């Protein structure tokens, strides 16, 4: 739009600078205030071999098997442990860090490490990983919101390591690079930027990393928050990066040369730079034959157009341009409006509001009640409002259809955008009729063409026009035509695979 881009402020003082002179003892004094903090000596000798940990962060079983068993069950020869550094030889845990840095000790303690000291007030400590990552996290990783009939049903989980595991299963190469940054002054959330080395343009990785590093926020709950912080333009209803919970989508994005951002505790992964067409692509398109895939993709695009313009065209035609209505339709339209006392705008706003209300309520209602309410809302209220002459039944069909059509987009964020876009157009159509719709479309197109995603144009295969990249945009061409990566992503290597190198298919005749 006409407004200046808002730059995220670059604040480097993320972590409060702590005085290094503070010692471990002060750390313990602070954490001892929590009831779930435990500290006790491992041996009988008090003040010797003291272990400290958060009871709630460590895995109790590991603690017992790997540490308590060694020091308690058999008589433990203390002379095997002269220095704290020797602990690595005794305890069979891979991740043991020896440090005298108080800050490191604090952050590791909060990540589920146990602190082991030789003697009380010893500054050099061993940090032993006993964390229990999976506790409290969901185990089922079925795709829930981006369902497809054909193809894998694997989605991401809240556990970031499992998510990386899922990615590595598909992208089985050492080129898959994961960069970790910690974001959030309170949550200290692990955020991973993944890309494929030798494919993804450095520029995208650097932009993404830099933007993520510049974030100053307290708690990161979800990638959708990160999404808002790192977007190129926050004054737009359009999502500029693509959030998805499907593994195959992210793999496809990485393979094409995009960057993916995963965040601990979020089952959604954001990929970018994305274009507007990416939001209308369903992974199912690639699992169906290309003719069917293209057809369904076209249907999706048309249904979105209908969803945005359906009700506003109704208003414009009914209010200003009755000449446009075909003769055969005039009777039924006129008849359905006959007993409605409101002007078409109010009628439409009333019905749109009802539908939005149903959607909002439907999301929050318990599953079992939700379905009943959907039926009550959809059928009973709709039918009753027609019978009560509050709305015309033609409009009821249009509004219901456009609500349905907005769900055809595979990405939920885009369907929210489409829901929103209707209202300005309804406003325009109600004051200027068809001219208003044209003005609305003009604003929409101007806005869309000005958008950027990580510095890449948002409407890219169409404006700026890139005919080579049209092969996988509105139409999903056959695999022999989509062997090149899209040019607008500026990938380092352009070929994904070489379809023409294959030998000709052999028929019975050749054998």
């Amino acid at each position, binding site marked *: 739009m*006409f407004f200046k881009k808002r730059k995220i402020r670059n604040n480097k003082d993320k972590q409060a600078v702590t005085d290094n002179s503070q010692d471990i003892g002060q750390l313990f004094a602070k954490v001892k205030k929590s009831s779930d903090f435990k500290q006790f000596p491992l041996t009988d000798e008090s003040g010797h071999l003291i272990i400290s940990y958060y009871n709630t962060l460590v895995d109790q079983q590991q603690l017992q098997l790997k540490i308590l068993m060694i020091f308690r069950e058999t008589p433990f020869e203390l002379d095997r442990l002269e220095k704290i550094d020797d602990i690595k030889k005794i305890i069979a845990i891979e991740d043991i860090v020896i440090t005298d840095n108080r800050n490191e000790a604090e952050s590791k303690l909060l990540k589920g490490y146990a602190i082991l000291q030789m003697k009380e007030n010893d500054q050099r400590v061993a940090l032993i990983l006993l964390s229990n990552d999976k506790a409290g996290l969901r185990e089922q990783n079925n795709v829930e919101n981006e369902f497809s009939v054909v193809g894998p049903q694997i989605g991401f989980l809240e556990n970031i390591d499992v998510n990386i595991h899922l990615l590595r299963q598909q992208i089985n190469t050492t080129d898959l690079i994961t960069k970790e940054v910690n974001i959030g002054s309170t949550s200290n959330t692990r955020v991973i930027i993944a890309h494929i080395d030798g494919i993804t343009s450095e520029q995208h990785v650097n932009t993404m990393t830099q933007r993520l590093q510049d974030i100053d926020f307290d708690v990161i709950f979800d990638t959708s928050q990160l999404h808002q912080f790192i977007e190129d333009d926050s004054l737009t209803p359009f999502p500029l990066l693509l959030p998805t919970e499907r593994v195959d989508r992210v793999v496809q994005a990485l393979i094409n040369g995009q960057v993916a951002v995963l965040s601990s505790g979020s089952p959604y992964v954001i990929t970018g730079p994305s274009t507007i067409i990416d939001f209308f692509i369903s992974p199912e398109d690639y699992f169906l034959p290309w003719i069917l895939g293209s057809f369904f993709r076209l249907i999706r695009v048309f249904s979105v157009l209908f969803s945005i313009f359906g009700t506003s065209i109704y208003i414009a035609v009914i209010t200003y341009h*009755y*000449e446009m209505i075909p*003769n055969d339709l005039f009777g039924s339209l006129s008849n359905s*409006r*006959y007993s409605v006392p409101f002007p078409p705008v109010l009628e439409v706003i009333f019905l749109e509001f009802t539908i939005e209300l149903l959607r909002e309520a439907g999301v929050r209602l318990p599953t079992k009640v939700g379905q009943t309410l959907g039926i009550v809302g959809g059928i009973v209220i709709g039918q009753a409002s027609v019978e009560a002459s509050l709305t015309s039944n033609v409009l009821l069909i249009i509004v219901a259809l456009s609500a349905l059509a907005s769900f055809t987009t595979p990405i939920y964020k885009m369907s929210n955008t489409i829901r929103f876009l209707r209202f300005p157009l309804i406003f325009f159509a109600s004051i200027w009729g068809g001219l208003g719709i044209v003005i609305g479309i003009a604003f929409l197109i101007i806005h869309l063409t000005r958008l950027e995603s990580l510095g890449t144009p948002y409407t890219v295969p169409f404006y700026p026009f890139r005919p080579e990249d049209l092969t996988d945009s509105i139409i999903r061409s056959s695999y022999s035509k989509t062997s090149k990566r899209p040019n607008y992503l500026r990938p380092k290597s352009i070929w994904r695979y070489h379809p023409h190198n294959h030998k000709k298919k052999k028929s019975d005749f050749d054998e």
Partner: protein
Amino acid sequence: MKLCFLSIFSLPFFLSGCGIHERIIDDVQIIEALGYDREEGKVKGIAIYPTFAEQGNVKLKIYKTVSDSYEDILPRMNAKSAYPIETGKLDFVLFGKEYATQGIEDVITNFARNPNTGSRMQLGIAENTAEDILQSSKHVNLSFHLSEKINQNIESGNLPKMNLHMFLNNSYQEGRDQILPYLILEEGQIKIDGLALLKNGKYINHINLRKSFILKTLIDGSHNGQYKTKITQNKKEGFILLKNLNAKTTYTVEKSEGIPRIFIDLTIHAEIEKASSWFDLKKDKDIVKLKRILNEHFKEEVQSLISLAQGYNVDPIGLGEKVRATSRNWDYQRFMDIYPELKTTVHTNVYILNTGIEE
């Protein structure tokens, strides 16, 4: 920048006077047909309007008004109506013969200037008064049926292609006169009974449906239409109903010593739909004979139509247009003077494609 954005945004708002005049579909009174008659020196206007109060049930109603001139017919009707009268869905305008004899040019040009009315509107001339015809169409509970009747006859009957747009085209171009459907009442029902020939927007005369089929093939060829001819063979009389499949006419203009001569080459691919039972359609010899008879017949018909038109001094076929297309020094006035003496040579080719069962 923000100021610029706001001013651009508000410009159309203020320019349009903070909103356009609303014409909500159920708050306007559309009229679907309009008739003009001349009655004792005054103009009588009749309008048919549909009401859609009941589900799936259309009722046609009529407004009538009388005025000194046609211009204020609609405002006078508006004074009788509950909702403002809108001409946006008007698609049939009928003129009484008396009105049409004095000229319909005024009405037509004013409709042409009105952006609300569609240019695919149909026009017509009524045999007696437009009132008779419109009054009798009231009982048909079907909206827009009068224009549908004409459209149907254009598509599958004997009427040449026409509507307001074509009418205006004919009146503004030099070298062709207008034609309009001619409507009569037959046993209380409205019937299209041929074509009215007009010159400069004034009714001259009319021709019947048989002649209008010939005119249709001469003007724009056709793919449809039915044509009945009388056949005499071995002193037996019979009838043949031709179903026209495809007709095409080509014109060649030969200019010599002032008066041009026009060669008309008419090709008709026809199908025999019905024939008298004594006529043997299976014999090739008879078909050949039939073709000869039909060739003769069409040649005569075309010639008589042209001489009829020349007699009325109207040019519905557009012979003037053909001459104009080949003339460097076109003078319409001069052509009008020589039009009655224009020579035409007609050559016809009738092909019978099918004599079998009717489709």
